[in-house]
């Protein structure tokens, strides 16, 4: 035990004396989460909207007021004719135009059909789609509230609801994904590099020739990173909840326990990587390309798994990140308990055991 603690103390000294390690360990997660959270967030706000109102009656005016006061849109002026639509799009004065037909209010009351047209500048397809969705949502909610007063003979409301993320907030998706990405990167990268460093500097040789067992060397290397990664996980959760207002509906204890499991898995992957690489450089390359790219691309973090070719879907099932994202989204956003994520938890547990076994087997207590 004393031997083990001595080893852990040495590892902590390595970590705290190297500004680069500290930077990657604590600076990177915070910078990444803040950058992704603010910049890559897919929310659209302050969309400039122009109005082309041919009827100018109380109902159309009310709808315009609803839209411009929603917080998503900024009133960009009235247009007089359809010809001006292209002009405001080209000049960039507006991104979307809301059009009302002739005698809007009268036609609702008499014919129970009236036309509203939304014209969007789709040169940026994603924001255009979002803007149209927002506007539609506002308009339909307006009619919903009016429907009782007006009492229409028939009316079909197409109502869509985005469960668990009513506002379609990008941050809700990004924070759990980022947490999964950051934890696996830091844990796997840092451990694989630190073990490869001992090999590179030749300090592994006397360690191997000493009475230390393979498992003691591995645990001694990994323990500091378990603690520091856990601090990271907590930091990310706090940032997500308090800065980006991601809800934390489920059990915090379960969330932390699942994070610990995931960290352990990532670390055992790191040890495994270090067992197959002899230099820091190669350990870094394997971690980056073997872990980071698939994590970002096929784990379901950014691109939906359902849209991938079948082969890639199978591949994505091998990504620990995929299962962890399901678990934390479930716990944070839906408040599900272990009863609903036990399958994913079991998969992570299985992967952890597999990699620990592989790491211990591949970690040689000799030089060749």
């Amino acid at each position, binding site marked *: 035990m004393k031997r083990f603690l001595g080893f852990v103390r040495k590892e902590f000294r390595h970590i705290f004396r190297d500004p680069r390690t500290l930077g990657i360990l604590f600076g990177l997660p915070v910078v990444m989460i803040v950058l992704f959270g603010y910049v890559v967030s897919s929310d659209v706000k302050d969309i400039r909207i122009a109005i082309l109102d041919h009827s100018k009656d109380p109902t159309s005016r009310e709808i315009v007021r609803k839209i411009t006061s929603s917080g998503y849109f900024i009133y960009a002026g009235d247009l007089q004719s359809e010809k001006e639509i292209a002009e405001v799009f080209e000049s960039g004065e507006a991104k979307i135009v809301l059009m009302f037909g002739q005698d809007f209010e009268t036609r609702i009351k008499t014919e129970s059909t009236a036309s509203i047209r939304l014209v969007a500048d789709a040169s940026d397809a994603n924001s255009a789609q979002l803007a149209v969705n927002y506007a539609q949502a506002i308009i339909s909610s307006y009619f919903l509230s009016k429907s009782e007063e007006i009492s229409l003979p028939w009316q079909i409301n197409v109502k869509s609801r985005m469960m668990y993320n009513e506002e379609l907030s990008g941050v809700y998706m990004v924070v759990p994904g980022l947490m999964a990405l950051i934890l696996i990167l830091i844990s796997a990268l840092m451990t694989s590099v630190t073990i490869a460093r001992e090999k590179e500097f030749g300090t592994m040789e*006397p360690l191997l020739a000493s*009475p230390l067992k393979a498992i003691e060397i591995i645990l001694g290397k990994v323990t500091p990173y378990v603690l520091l990664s856990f601090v990271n996980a907590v930091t990310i959760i706090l940032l997500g909840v308090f800065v980006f207002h991601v809800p934390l509906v489920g059990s915090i204890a379960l969330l932390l326990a699942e994070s610990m499991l995931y960290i352990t898995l990532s670390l055992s992957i790191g040890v495994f990587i270090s067992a197959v690489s002899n230099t820091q450089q190669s350990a870094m390359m394997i971690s980056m390309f073997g872990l980071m790219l698939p994590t970002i691309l096929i784990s379901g973090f950014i691109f939906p798994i359902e849209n991938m070719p079948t082969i890639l879907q199978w591949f994505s099932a091998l990504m620990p990140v995929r299962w962890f994202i399901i678990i934390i989204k479930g716990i944070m956003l839906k408040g599900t308990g272990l009863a609903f994520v036990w399958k994913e938890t079991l998969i992570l547990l299985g992967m952890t055991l597999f990699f620990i076994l592989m790491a211990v087997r591949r970690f040689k207590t000799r030089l060749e």
Partner: protein
Amino acid sequence: MSFVINNISKSYEETRALRDVSFETNEGELFGLIGPDGAGKTSLFRILATLIFPDEGDASVKGFDIRKDFREIRKILGYMPGRFSLYHDLSVKENLEFYATVFGTTIAENYDLIKDIYAHIEPFENRLAGKLSGGMKQKLALSCALIHRPDVLILDEPTTGVDAVSRKEFWDMLKRIQKEGITILVSTPYMDEAALCDRVGLIQHGKLLSVSKPGDLRFDEAMILYSFRCKSGIYEYLSKIRGLQGCSSAFLFGDEIHLLVNGKKEAEELERAIKGWNVPALSLKQITPGIEDYFMALMKSEKHDDLMSEEH
């Protein structure tokens, strides 16, 4: 017997690092393994330190087999690899402390053993190991290898890259460690260090050429060794001398040439021939051969044999 090595062979892909090496060391002996870079010294030491397996042959350390009883060997072995394996971002004291805890001991427990060595670097206890000079790193590495009071000590080229004064100090330390009853196996590329060992083994191209006491190294009675010095153009003279009849070998030794002659008659002829060249500022005199000369001669003949056998 501390180290017993029986017919050890080891190959890495194309290169044969060790070829059928056998020798034994006595209890408490300071045994030197001398040979140029790539001779196979490190491979042999790694085999004895249970870090690699030999392809053929077996070996034991203090009676423990290197394959079966490697855990036992690792408890009683002090091993200092070729590169000083120190943590550069830890201080002198932290390095020593770490190796002490790895072996389940403390600095205080075995301080008396390393006192003489560690005293040199103790004033810099809090300095980072990476900021030490070569000599100080070497002393720290030795202290780290000794901190668990091993029964046997393996030192792989401990004096390489260290200044002459530190080298001398280092060998004095080894002598003192030996007095504690620790068997020391040390390798070096420096011939002059051979004289400081109890026995030396000469190794080249993975082959152990000879094992003997430094004092026993003798030439054939009839051989005569000359030292040749001149003002300039020593390389030209080297090839000229090598072309002379009766010269069995000639080597560059610093700024002089050592040349070995087969007998008295040949020596006279050779002296006459060289004097005939009118070498500027010539100094040619008979000298008593040192260990270096012996090794050079031995290596030369071995190389020659190798070439011959490969041609067949």
